[in-house]
């Protein structure tokens, strides 16, 4: 073998060795990357399964509170609107009383009739009718032919009457304030239907 041939052989030995070494290292890098990728995947999977229950709790807490707060806002807004209606109704009722409108006089008469019918009886004694001072003359006129003994008294009420017998066994509450108080739940519902059916559908 000549010197040139030996030199060529030596070069070939090193070329193969370098190629082999490079291949081994590249394979190792690939394996390392695969190991890390697999670890990341496993970690993701493990994390996912572990956080599902936490996610559900978070969802219930955060969205549940939002819905609850939202519902409160709606209830408050509705109550505000209904209260606005009651305030307006009170203004109107005051005007009815002050102007002694036919509707008001008719209401006063019917209240009186109902009160007398409810309270009067064999042991009723004297019936005391309490009303706003401005209505006393109207009531005096209405009770002048009544067969029972009636006493009229002024009271701090807006309109209508409250009545009781001196025996104190029966009372009738027919003042505007009493009726408003008693009918408020029903009225609240009626007003809500009227107001919000149109608003929410429109």
């Amino acid at each position, binding site marked *: 073998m000549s010197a040139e041939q030996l030199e060529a052989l030596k070069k070939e030995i090193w070329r193969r*060795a370098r190629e082999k070494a490079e291949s081994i290292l590249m394979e190792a890098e690939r394996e390392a990357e695969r190991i890390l990728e697999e670890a990341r995947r496993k970690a993701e999977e493990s994390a996912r399964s572990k956080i599902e229950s936490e996610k559900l709790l978070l969802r219930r807490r955060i969205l549940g509170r939002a819905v609850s707060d939202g519902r409160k806002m709606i209830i408050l807004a509705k109550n505000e609107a209904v209260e606005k209606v009651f305030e307006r109704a009170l203004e109107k009722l005051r005007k009815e009383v002050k102007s002694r409108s036919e509707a008001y006089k008719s209401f006063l008469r019917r209240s009186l009739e109902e009160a007398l019918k409810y309270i009067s009886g064999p042991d009723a004694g004297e019936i005391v009718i309490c009303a706003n001072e401005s209505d006393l003359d109207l009531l005096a006129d209405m009770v002048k032919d009544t067969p029972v003994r009636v006493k009229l008294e002024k009271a701090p009420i807006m309109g209508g009457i409250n009545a009781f017998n001196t025996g104190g066994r029966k009372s009738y509450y027919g003042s505007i304030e009493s009726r408003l108080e008693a009918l408020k739940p029903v009225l609240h519902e009626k007003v809500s239907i009227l107001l919000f059916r149109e608003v929410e559908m429109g």
Partner: protein
Amino acid sequence: MSIASILLEEKKAMMYVEEARRKAQEIVQKARAEAEKFLSKTTETEVIRRKLQEYEESLREEAEKILGEYRARAEKLRAISDELVERAAELVVKVILGHER
């Protein structure tokens, strides 16, 4: 140069490849150790915390959207027309004075 020198070169080249194998083993072992560490620590705390934080942020956005919808509905309810308030007030007056329920 002789056959002996070639054999010597062959031995050196084999040692060179062996060194590469040793380095490769080190690379893989290092990766395994890193993966183990990643799985035992990062998975348990960091990833879960980060994912939950991301989810919470998305939920907060969703919650804000829900609240916005309720807010708009509430505003609509508050902006009831005067004509409707008047009609409802008339209804109340009618019930109170009309002895109807």
